[in-house]
C-alpha cells in the first residue's frame, strides 16, 4: 500500500476535501459547493445544531484532521455557536489547506457558493500533487459495525469479520469494535480477554452503563422478535455481534475521538456518560461509523443481513453481506458475499481472508461498492463524554 503522509505521522488511504457546514443553516451552501465535484474527491460533513457542544467540537477536530482528509473548507452562517476559529486553528496546525467561508459576511448564498467552488478548485490542484509514501498493514486502523442484522449475521458475516480482525491484529493493525449496547451478557468473556484485570473491569463497566442507558430509554435488550429469529438468550444475541471482534486480546477501551496508541484490538464505548440527555446514543448506523472514523479508522467493515446500502464520508465502507438471498437482490451494493458460507461454497476462514485481502486492495485505492455509487453519508448529533481513565489503555 501507499499512503498520504500527514504532519502527525499518520498516513491516509484517501485524500478527500471536506466541505463542513457548522450549523444546518449553512448546509445548503456546503452541498451546493460540493456538487461541482466528484463525491470521492469532495464530501460534505457537518453539525446541524446552533448551540455549542464540546463533543461535536472535538469530533469535528478529529474528523477534519483525519489521515484520509487532505483539505477543509468550513462553511459558517455567522451567528451559530460552533467555535469555527478553534476548528480552523486545529486544521491549520496539521498543515492542511483550510479556509472559513462565513455566509453572512460573503453577501449570501450565491457569492458564498462561488467563492467556495473557486477555493476547492484551487485546492484540488494542490492535493493532486500530494506525494505518497509506502504504508504497512500495521499503520492501518480498521473499524467494524453491524446493521440491518438478521439470523444469518451471527453465522456468517460477523464471525468472518472476526477472522479478518484476528489476521489484521496479528499483522500489527489497530482494530476497533463497538456497540456496547449489543454486548450485554458478554461481560465475563470480555473481561477474560482483556490485557489487564483493570481494563477488564472498565470493559464491564462500559456495558453496564449501556444497559442502564437503554433501560432509561425503554429500549429492550432482548425482544420477542429475537427469539422468533432463533436466538434463545441475550448472551447468545450479544455473542453474535461480539463475534466481529475475533479472538485477539483486548488492548484497550476508547471513547469517540480517541486514537489507538498502537496496534491491537480495542472496544469503542459509544454510550454517553452521565444522565441521559440527548436521546438515543446513536440514532442510526452512520452515527457509529462517524465515531469509528473519528478514532482514526481508515476503513470500516460493515456486516449486514437484511441489506444496508450505506457508505460514509471520509473513510471507505466495505459491506459484508451475511445473507445469500439479500446478496442476490443487492449485489451491486455488497462488497463481500459471506452468505456463501451457508451455501457450503466457502468457509469462515476463506471469507475472512477475502475480507483481509479487500482491506488491502481498498488501501491501495480500489473503490468499494458504496464509494462507486457515490455514498458519503454522515451524521453527527449532540452527546457528552467523560475522558477515559488510565486503566483503559494499559500499554499506552
Amino acid at each position, binding site marked *: 500500500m501507499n499512503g498520504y503522509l500527514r504532519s502527525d505521522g499518520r498516513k491516509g488511504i484517501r485524500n478527500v476535501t471536506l466541505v463542513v457546514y457548522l450549523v444546518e443553516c449553512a448546509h445548503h451552501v456546503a452541498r451546493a459547493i460540493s456538487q461541482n465535484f466528484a463525491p470521492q474527491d469532495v464530501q460534505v460533513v457537518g453539525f446541524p445544531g446552533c448551540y455549542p457542544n464540546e463533543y461535536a467540537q472535538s469530533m469535528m477536530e478529529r474528523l477534519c484532521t483525519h489521515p484520509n482528509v487532505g483539505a477543509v473548507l468550513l462553511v459558517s452562517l455567522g451567528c451559530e455557536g460552533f467555535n469555527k476559529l478553534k476548528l480552523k486553528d486545529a486544521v491549520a496546525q496539521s498543515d492542511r489547506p483550510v479556509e472559513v467561508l462565513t455566509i453572512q459576511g460573503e453577501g449570501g448564498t450565491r457569492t458564498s457558493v462561488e467563492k467556495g467552488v473557486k477555493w476547492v478548485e484551487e485546492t484540488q490542484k494542490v492535493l493532486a500533487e500530494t506525494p505518497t509514501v509506502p504504508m504497512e498493514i500495521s499503520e492501518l486502523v480498521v473499524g467494524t459495525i453491524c446493521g440491518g442484522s438478521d439470523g*444469518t449475521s451471527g453465522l456468517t458475516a460477523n464471525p468472518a469479520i472476526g477472522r479478518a480482525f484476528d489476521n489484521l491484529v496479528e499483522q500489527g493493525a489497530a482494530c476497533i469494535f463497538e456497540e456496547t449496547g449489543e454486548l450485554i451478557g458478554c461481560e465475563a468473556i470480555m473481561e477474560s480477554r482483556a490485557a489487564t484485570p483493570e481494563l477488564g473491569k472498565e470493559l464491564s463497566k462500559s456495558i453496564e452503563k449501556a444497559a442502564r442507558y437503554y433501560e432509561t430509554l425503554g429500549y429492550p435488550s432482548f425482544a420477542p422478535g429475537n427469539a422468533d429469529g432463533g436466538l434463545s438468550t441475550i448472551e447468545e444475541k450479544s455473542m453474535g455481534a*461480539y463475534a466481529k471482534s475475533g*479472538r485477539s486480546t483486548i488492548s484497550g477501551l476508547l471513547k469517540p475521538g480517541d486514537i489507538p496508541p498502537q496496534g491491537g484490538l480495542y472496544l469503542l464505548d459509544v454510550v454517553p456518560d452521565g444522565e441521559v440527555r440527548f436521546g438515543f446514543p446513536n440514532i442510526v448506523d452512520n452515527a457509529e461509523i462517524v465515531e469509528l472514523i473519528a478514532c482514526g479508522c481508515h476503513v470500516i467493515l460493515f456486516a449486514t443481513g437484511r441489506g444496508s446500502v450505506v457508505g460514509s464520508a471520509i473513510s471507505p465502507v466495505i459491506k459484508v453481506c451475511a445473507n445469500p438471498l439479500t446478496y442476490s437482490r443487492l449485489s451491486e451494493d455488497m462488497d463481500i458475499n459471506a452468505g456463501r458460507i451457508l451455501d457450503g461454497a466457502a468457509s469462515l476462514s476463506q471469507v475472512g481472508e477475502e475480507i483481509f485481502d479487500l482491506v488491502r486492495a481498498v488501501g491501495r485505492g480500489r473503490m468499494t461498492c458504496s464509494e462507486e455509487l457515490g455514498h458519503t453519508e454522515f451524521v453527527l448529533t449532540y452527546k457528552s463524554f467523560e475522558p477515559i481513565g488510565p486503566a483503559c489503555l494499559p500499554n499506552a
Partner: protein
Amino acid sequence: MSDTNADKITDNRLILLDEQDNILGVARPIRAGEAIPVNGEYVRLDRNAGIGFKVARQEIKKGDSIVKYGAVIGTASVDIAVGQLVHVHNMNSNYLANTELAGLGGEKKA
C-alpha cells in the same frame, strides 16, 4: 474459542461455529421430521428450525451449559437429545437469572 476445525461443514443445512460448541447452527430452514446428519449419524429433527436456530450436536443434560461460538450462552433446563432443537423451551439465560443490572433482572425471555 478453539482454533481447530471450526469451519468444517457437516451438511449444507448445518454449520459448526466452534469446535467446542455442543450445538450446530441452522443454515437453511429444516422441517420437523427431516433427517439431519449429526456426528455421522442421521437423526430426525423434532421441531421446525429456521435460519439461525440451533440443533444439539451431542447429548446435553439438564444443567449443562449450552456452548456456541465457544462461549456459554445459557443452561439446559431439561435433558436434550442429539439432533433436537435447542431454544427457549429447553434452555435458559444465565445472564438474566444472575444479573442485577437495572431493568434486566426482571426481564423474562419471550
